[in-house]
Structure formats: C-alpha cells, structure tokens
C-alpha cells in the first residue's frame, strides 16, 4: 500500500513537473519574437553555448570518428567491403551518432553552465533585482540563453559530423590505405540531402529539448548551493534521457 502511494506520488510529481515545463516552454515561445528583436543578447549566448563548446565537440568528434574508422574497418573487412567505410560512417554519423553525441556533450558542457548560471543568479537575488527594476528576467536572461542554445545545437552537430568524418578518413584512408577517391565518391553517391536534413532536424529538436531543460532547471532551482547543484545534475540526467527518447520518436516518424 505504501509502495503504491509512493508510486502515485512519484507519478503526480513527474506530471506536475512536466506540466510546469510545458507552460514554461509556452511562455518562451510566446516571447520569442520579442527576443529576436534583441539579436545582440542572443548572439552573446550563441557564443557562450556554441563557440565555447567548440573545443569539446571537435576533440570528441575526432576521436569518435577515429574509433568508427577502426571498428568500421574491422567489421567491413570481414565481409570484404572496406571501401564502404565512408558511406557507412557518414550515414551513421549524420542520422544518429552526430546529433545524439553532440546533444549529450552539449548537455554536459553548455546545459550545466546555463542551469548553474541562472540558478546562481536566482540564489544571489539577481533575478529578483531585475524583476524589481521592471525588467522581466524571463525575457532578459532566460529567453536569450534558450535561443542561443537552440541556434547553437544544429551548428555544433554539423561541426561534430564534419570533424568525425575527418577522423574516419584519417583511419580509413591514411592508416588502412583505403583509396581516397573511392572513400569520398561512394559517400557522395549514397548519402542524400534528406540524410543531412534528418541530422540537422535532430540537432534542432535536441537543441530545443536540452536548452529548455537547462533554463527550466536553473530558473526553478532552489536558491541555495545545494539547490543549484541539484538543478545542474538534473539538467544532465533529464537532458540525456530526453535526447534518447526524442531520438527514437523522431527516427520513427522520419523512417
């Protein structure tokens, strides 16, 4: 009986939080046109969320690509199709690995930074001070950060995929000696524009989800050191789960 009660309470809490996040998202969407009228604020956040994530995205992308090169070559060599390495890697990266890994890295780097920054602003009364100065913190602080994240994610996804492909090429062509022309020309023959669109669409969807979760958790953080820490942890966990669930949903819709 106690277990059932706790289960129901847990479900009620989850639904309550999901409802609050949906309302929060609605408010952000409603404010978006006004937010775009202040492009400087959004550009600053594209720099914070996007440009400052470039190093981790590029380094991770390179190594993910190199591992794909090693594993892909091993797999394809068993069936005698090593020259398909470029095509296989490109499709895997564009359609799945690129957007998902980028989103996970984004949640870990930019998402936590957003959540803790907004949470600390709440804890140090900076958001209340703005509100008292008749400046809506949702418009001035939350919205630019949300839009900055949404704009950054597809761009980071594209960069991640490009660097990863370079890593695959490094291993496949430079190390294993696959013919460079064959590697690239086969990729161009089999990879279609719709695959690129799918990757960018997923990047956009994950960008909306991860940015929303980060700003929501930060804005609603308890104004204590512990509360900000909890909000940061929740940002990573919820973003990771949301990314994987949304990945399934978007893939099922697009296929």
């Amino acid at each position, binding site marked *: 009986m106690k277990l059932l009660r706790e289960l129901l309470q847990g479900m009620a809490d989850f639904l309550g939080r999901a409802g609050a996040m949906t309302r929060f998202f609605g408010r952000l969407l409603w404010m978006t046109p006004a937010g775009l009228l202040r492009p400087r604020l959004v550009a600053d956040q594209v720099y914070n969320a996007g440009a400052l994530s470039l190093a981790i995205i590029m380094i991770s992308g390179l190594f993910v690509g190199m591992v794909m090169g090693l594993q892909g070559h091993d797999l394809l060599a068993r069936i005698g199709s090593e020259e398909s390495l470029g095509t296989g890697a490109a499709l895997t990266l564009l359609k799945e690995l690129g957007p998902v890994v980028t989103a996970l890295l984004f949640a870990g780097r930019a998402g936590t930074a957003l959540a803790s920054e907004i949470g600390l602003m709440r804890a140090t*009364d900076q958001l209340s*001070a703005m509100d008292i100065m008749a400046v809506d913190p949702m418009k001035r602080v939350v919205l630019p950060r949300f839009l900055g994240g949404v704009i950054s994610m597809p761009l980071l996804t594209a960069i991640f995929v490009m660097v990863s492909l370079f890593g695959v090429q490094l291993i496949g062509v430079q190390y294993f000696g696959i013919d460079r022309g064959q590697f690239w020309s086969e990729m161009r023959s089999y990879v279609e524009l719709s695959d690129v669109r799918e990757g960018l669409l997923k990047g956009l969807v994950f960008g909306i989800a991860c940015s929303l979760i980060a700003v929501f958790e930060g804005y609603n953080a308890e104004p204590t050191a512990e509360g900000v820490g909890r909000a940061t942890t929740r940002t990573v966990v919820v973003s990771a789960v949301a990314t994987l669930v949304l990945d399934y949903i978007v893939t099922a819709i697009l296929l």
Partner: protein
Amino acid sequence: MGSQLGLAGSRGAVAGGDNVAVLRGVHYAVDHKPVFRGLDVEIRRGEVTAIMGPSGTGKTTLLRLITGQIHADAGTVEVDGQDVGRLGRRELYALRRRMGMLFQNGALLTDIDVFENVAFPLREHARLPERLVRSLVLTKLHAVGLRGAARLMPQQLSGGMARRVALARAIVMDPDILIYDEPFAGLDPISMGVVMRLIRSLNDALGISSIVVSHDVREIALLADQSYILSEGQVVASGSPRELQDHPSPIVRQFMEGLADGPVPFHYPAPDYYGQLLAPGEAAR
C-alpha cells in the same frame, strides 16, 4: 548634502496623499503558517520609515508585498494609491519603475562591470544617447562616492562598496520610493556610517520616500523619522525612534535594549532539558 551629492530633487503632487504606501489588515501565510495577522502600516511620503523587529517576523516579506513580488491573502497593499494586488504585470512594472530597491547583498549582475550595472535600468527602459547614459551613470556613482570604481567588476568590490553601487543603480531612474533590505548587515562601522548618511541625504536631496528594513536599533534611531516594530505578524509599536525608546511594551523594551531573553525567548521550543539529557538512545535526540 544635496550639492555634495551632485543631485537635485524635484517632486510634484502625486497620488496617494500623505502616504506613499498603506497596508490595511494584511494577512499572509506561508505553508499555512501565518506571517501577518491583520498588519496595518502607513509609509509617509518624503520620510525615512524603518521597519524593525526580531529575525523571522516578516520584515522582508513586508517589502515583497509592497513591491508586488507576493500578494496578501487578505487585506490591501496600496502604493501611490494603487492596489498592488490588483495590478496586471504591465501596470505592476510601470509602478516598479518608480521604485528602487537595495537588496541585502547588493544583487549586482556579476557578468557586467559597475558602470554597466548602474546603466542597466537606463538601457532597459530608455533609449538614451550614450553620452547622456554616461553622464547619468557617472553622476549617480559620484553621489555614492564610487565614480572611480566604474570599471571594476562586482567581484572586486567590498560588501560596502557593492551596496553603494546597488544604491547608485537603485536611484538611476530617479525613483519616488527607495526600499532598503537590511542595508547595514555585515558592514564595518565606516561603511555603515557611509550608507547611513547616503540613505538620509538621498531621501532629502531627491525628495523621495524611503523604507528601511533593519534590526540595527542604534543606526535606525539616528536615521528614521518613523519606525514600526513587528512581532508575531502584527505591529507591536510605532512612532519616532525616541517614542520607541520610552515604549512600555516588554517586547519593544527587549528589542530596543537587545536583551537575550524576554517575550522573544532565547531557547527555541524544545522538550525538557534534563529529561532529554538523561533519556536513553533515540529519545535523547
């Protein structure tokens, strides 16, 4: 002092009569625990009004009611003749543009420097030429003695300096009401003296009304025109600091004289001391 500050005040007739804020029969509870039970407070225009009382009596909550951050469960909160509880967001923001508030910790925006912090309300609310913004900001910084610190970051300021910058930011839009939440907490005697002088002189030079929440009795006695002492959700005494000094109420006496025990007990409610010490195991907790 007004000329020393480099400020000049001009106030016309405004709504609300002699009182800039009036709270009538205010009830407010948090998690069913009452904070105010029929609170009545009047803040006179052009004066420095102090809100005092032991910790946890809802002094900051009172400020949050006046600024419309929270709403009373019952009763009315009027500021400049407007019922704060009935205002929409747009009207509330219009009212708040006429208010300035100094937070206990300054609440400066930590990612921009002192100059930009003071310029923040101007940039958000008025499209002014950069030259005008610059001179307005420097005037206000000069008034609080920190013109030379314009390019420092908030992290480089001492507690007292941060509060003075926050004060410059609070007056940059020339408000009608200035609200101070524990302005002396944690300040050294010199900074405290500076902040005290600033509160008084800004009030008089700009012709504004000031509300100061504090439990620093000695400072308030020197500063305030009118004081309220809150306890258990109500006003237990009000008047000039001199009147409060001579007040017969035991709780007012305890507060004004800083006595450790009295109507406000030293000990938080707890079970019998010896019984708890001698009880075995879990019961001793």
